[in-house]
């Protein structure tokens, strides 16, 4: 395997940026954003350089490693701090640094009025570094560091405006729910070490064939738990909506393009485990399917533009997870959808940010309307993203999403039919809620508050949007042209046999488009023909109410985990005070009490004392009497 000394720069540069920005404090306020962007950009440059190097090598020689130092070594538990850049990670590296840099640029302007912009850039850089570590680590433990690192960055960024208690709570919620997922990753690593004896990708891959399916299934399920946490999949999805509390660039970068896709990366990266553990794989598919519907349904009812997009993200990642769960045949498509999604969803988020920028940070779509005229560029870029997510040919989503739907149908048997139908249905709902977003935001009549003065965003903001829009348009075509991505990634995955074709690709596309058309039509009928109330109507169906409440996920969590947890805590606190410490104090009191009691023996009467002596003597005599009897 090729080694390289320059991989570390990918991570080191943004990390250095973060460190400088954080340590320098207010002194760096003037140039902090520039440094942050430069660091991210240079990392992107290093990524491009690595790609060019990689392209110049044969398939087998493409993966590059760099061992930095021996990190942990105890007994047989040996983990090096080492990086691995292969065909899979390079995709992520470029996505992260590329989209990341664009968002840095965007943020320069977006955050220009914020007192703490420097800190924001520091966090962004920290995130880039952590995310790169996540995708570059050569073992699960290294990945874990990045995994929690992005969690931290996400926490910091969601809570960037933590002076608002709700935002602070949102960040905490995100972190805690992520930690539940992280726990899964810990379990996976522990099981892997206990059964296989190593935690590196390479090592486990080598041992897969003589490891029991049971163990692999356990590892797989635990990895899936991790993925659900980080990628906001069912049942750990609840944090993503709240995470929109963060500045919009954050939502674009972290909660749309990169971090939330880490679950997909994890499952794809662990393909050798899932391939050998069908049960785990099946679970992956199920989770993906549930989430894609779940997210889509939530999306239909949200009035907050960012939350609607977040729900969409959840749903789209459901697609990816589902794709990744389909095995060797699906990994590449999952990644492809991941990449295209990275473009169009980031683009749309930035668009949403741009809208908010123009609308005094208003997020309620019911207070938008008719913005097309005031924000033409935003409308254009957002619209391209819209088309992409709908899967309208030839936009990016068409290539990636249809592939997943097709693969789902072709996964065989009843499973195939169910999955295919779910994905199709999802596509339809997606079309509905995205159209709703478009209509509410850009068309119709204006429903703004009086002080709103919508205007187009400055260059630094729309330029990244434009670049991403280009990506939304072209990436699908570019990546699927001649199965470019599939072939690029193929060496990493197991060969897959031919599948029975349930439906021809063209049929699938047709069905998908039909569903999309239905979705669009319904949305059109519902929102374009009628007046949209600027305040969300209350007299809606139960389903809408439930959907508005994120399908009761928070209620559920509160009722099942939070409240009992809080009660348990209170009970324990009281128990500790009353029972455990009480027992200790009780012993003390008992001693004191018996002391006071025995004190009574000392009555002050000399005759009592004499009686005590006499009784003592009698007892002695009695003992003798017994002994000699």
């Amino acid at each position: 395997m090729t080694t390289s000394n320059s991989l570390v720069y990918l991570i080191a540069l943004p990390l250095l940026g973060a460190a400088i920005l954080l340590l320098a404090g207010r002194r760096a306020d003037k140039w902090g954003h520039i440094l942050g962007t430069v660091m991210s950009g240079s990392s992107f440059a290093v990524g491009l350089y690595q790609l060019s190097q990689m392209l110049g090598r044969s398939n087998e020689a493409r993966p590059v490693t760099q061992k930095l130092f021996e990190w942990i070594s105890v007994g047989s538990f040996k983990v090096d701090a080492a990086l691995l850049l292969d065909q899979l990670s390079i995709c992520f590296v470029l996505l992260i640094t590329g989209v990341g840099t664009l968002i840095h640029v965007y943020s320069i302007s977006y955050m220009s009025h914020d007192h703490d912009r420097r800190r924001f850039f520091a966090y962004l850089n920290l995130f880039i570094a952590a995310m790169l570590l996540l995708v570059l680590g050569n073992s699960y433990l290294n990945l874990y560091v990045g995994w929690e690192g992005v969690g931290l960055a996400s926490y910091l960024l969601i809570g960037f405006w933590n002076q608002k208690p709700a935002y602070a709570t949102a960040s905490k919620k995100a972190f805690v729910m992520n930690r539940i997922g992280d726990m899964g990753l810990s379990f996976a690593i522990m099981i892997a070490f206990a059964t296989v004896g190593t935690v590196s990708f390479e090592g486990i891959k080598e041992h897969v064939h003589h490891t029991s399916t049971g163990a692999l299934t356990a590892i797989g399920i635990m990895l899936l738990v991790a993925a659900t946490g980080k990628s906001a999949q069912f049942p750990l999805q609840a944090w993503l909506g709240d995470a929109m509390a963060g500045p919009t660039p954050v939502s674009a970068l972290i909660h749309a393009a990169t971090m939330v896709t880490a679950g997909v990366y994890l499952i794809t990266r662990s393909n050798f485990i899932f391939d050998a553990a069908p049960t785990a794989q099946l679970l992956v598919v199920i989770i993906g399917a549930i989430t894609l519907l779940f997210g889509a349904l939530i999306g239909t009812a949200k009035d907050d533009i960012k939350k609607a997009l977040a729900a969409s993200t959840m749903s789209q990642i459901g697609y990816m997870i589902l794709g990744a769960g389909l095995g060797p045949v699906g990994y590449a498509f999952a990644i492809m959808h991941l990449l295209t999604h990275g473009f169009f969803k980031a683009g749309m988020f930035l668009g949403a940010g741009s809208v908010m920028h123009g609308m005094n940070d208003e997020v309620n779509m019911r207070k938008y309307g008719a913005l097309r005229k005031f924000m033409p560029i935003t409308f254009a870029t957002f619209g391209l993203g819209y088309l992409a997510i709908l899967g309208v040919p030839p936009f990016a989503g068409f290539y990636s999403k249809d592939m997943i739907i097709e693969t789902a149908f072709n996964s065989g048997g009843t499973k195939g039919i169910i999955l295919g139908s779910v994905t199709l249905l999802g596509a339809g709902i997606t079309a509905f809620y995205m159209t709703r977003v478009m209509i509410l935001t850009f068309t119709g009549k204006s429903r703004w508050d009086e002080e709103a003065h919508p205007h187009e965003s400055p260059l630094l903001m729309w330029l990244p949007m434009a670049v991403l829009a280009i990506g939304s348009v072209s990436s699908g075509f570019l990546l699927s042209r001649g199965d470019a991505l599939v072939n690029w990634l193929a060496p990493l995955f197991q060969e897959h046999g031919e599948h029975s074709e349930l439906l021809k690709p063209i049929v699938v596309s047709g069905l998908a488009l039909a569903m999309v058309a239905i979705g669009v039509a319904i949305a059109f009928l519902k929102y374009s023909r009628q007046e949209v109330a600027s305040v969300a109507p209350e007299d809606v169906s139960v389903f809408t109410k439930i959907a508005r409440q994120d399908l009761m996920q928070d209620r559920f969590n509160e009722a099942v985990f939070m409240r009992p947890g809080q009660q348990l805590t209170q009970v324990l606190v009281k128990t500790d005070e009353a029972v455990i410490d009480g027992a200790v104090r009780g012993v003390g009191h008992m001693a004191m009490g018996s002391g006071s009691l025995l004190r009574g023996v000392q009555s002050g009467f000399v005759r009592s004392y004499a009686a005590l002596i006499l009784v003592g003597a009698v007892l002695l005599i009695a003992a003798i009497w017994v002994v000699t009897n």
Partner: protein
Amino acid sequence: MDAANYLYLSVLLFTIGAVGVVVRRNAIVVFMCIELMLNAANLAFVTFSRINGDLNGQVVAFFTMVVAACEVVVGLAIIVTIYRSRRSASVDDASLLKR
């Protein structure tokens, strides 16, 4: 005549003396009861001296008498002192110190 009878007698006297210490309140009577106990012990010594056929026991009894005399002097001096202070020879009245 069984010498053991003297021992029984001695035990009885000792017991009576001990009980007297507990039940009587007049300090002087209490003290007399203690003297009775000492006398009982002396009787035991004398009896054992006879049983053992040596005079050591009698010597002890003799010493006891001397020591008891000293004790009486000291004891009565203390009792008189406390009587003078309290105008009472009851041991129950002297119960300032307790608990």
